[in-house]
């Protein structure tokens, strides 16, 4: 049996999908605000390692999401959409993103939430900056593609594929390790 893309659930059409996108966004934005992730102080607090709210949100989302999605994949309900990467792309692009993350104090998702929260540095500064930055990337893309993006290319491989093992041998230990780490964080009073 094909375990991928064998979606028994009929996915709605493009028009409905746009409305669904809006609904998913509203729920995501609502949750980001409830978590405090729309705030510069909380995000910088995380990067300064003083307030671990952001990592608690992200890691509990990863454990929950991973268990559910790998289960649904085993049942043939969903497939995966791993992004392809390379060292030139994921590592160097990631580091540049990280510098911008600390200077701005928001990321593309949380800045949208920050705008909804009324934060004007996000709207008048950060948003314009991101639009300039992405436009600049589009302009430089052909050169970047040749120079760095393909360096150390590994494609859209997942960790279980890389290690050639059953995904559950990674999913279960990783879920336990992350949960253990979060308990340890709490025990430290962080």
């Amino acid at each position, binding site marked *: 049996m094909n375990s991928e893309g064998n*979606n028994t659930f009929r*996915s*709605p059409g493009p028009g409905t*999908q746009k*409305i669904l*996108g*809006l609904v998913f966004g*509203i729920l*995501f934005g609502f949750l980001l605000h*409830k*978590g405090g992730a729309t*705030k*510069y102080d909380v995000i910088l607090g995380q*990067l300064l390692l003083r307030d671990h709210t952001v990592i608690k*949100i*992200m890691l*509990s*989302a*990863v454990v*929950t999401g991973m268990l559910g*999605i790998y289960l*649904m994949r085993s049942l043939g309900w*969903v497939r995966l959409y*791993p*992004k*392809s*990467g390379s060292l030139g*792309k994921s*590592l160097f*692009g*990631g580091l540049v*993103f990280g*510098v*911008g993350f*600390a*200077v701005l*104090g928001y*990321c*593309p998702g949380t800045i*949208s*939430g*920050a*705008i*909804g*929260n009324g934060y004007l540095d996000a709207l008048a*500064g*950060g948003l314009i900056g*991101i*639009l*300039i*930055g*992405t*436009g*600049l990337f*589009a302009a430089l*893309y*052909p050169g970047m593609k040749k120079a760095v*993006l393909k360096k150390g290319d590994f494609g859209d*491989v997942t960790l279980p594929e*890389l290690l050639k093992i059953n995904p559950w041998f990674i999913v279960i230990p990783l879920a336990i390790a992350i949960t253990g780490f979060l308990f340890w964080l709490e025990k430290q009073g962080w």
Partner: protein
Amino acid sequence: MNFLLEARWSPYVVGIAIGVLSWLSFLISRKPIACSTSFARTSGMIERIFRGEKVEAKAYYREIGISIDWQWMLVIGIIIGAAVSALISGDFHWQWVPHLWAAAFGTDAVTRVIVALLGGILLGFGARWAGGCTSGHGISGTLQLALSSWIAAISFFAGGIVTAHLIFQVLAGGGKP
């Protein structure tokens, strides 16, 4: 339903709910939650207003397409959802300068906006360079166990933690929390 009016929830409740939301987006929309491509599309749409249809011929925009799609609507939804949560919990307020920034660098709005603009340029450029952001790689990609996303997410935080310490410990002259 009083919990909906609270300004903050436990980060674990929020994280688990985002995880469940990701199940639904895979199942119903067959898409992982992600944001940064929509900013690139918006940038392309704005450029198209000034420079016309030829913008669509740029290699990068040919790859991602500059139209309003599921993810673009998701980003609009985030603004609305955060505004609703902030408004009903009494946490909505117009603010130019965040407290932590003000404590280290003062309350001048112009300085903060210029720094935010520069940070945004790096963030936007880096997001497209890495092919994703804190949601697309950091949550949706890592939960799929994609190698690209684990490398990107670790790099986001490595770059962010070092830079944040440089800004607040070195530039701000070792300012205490």
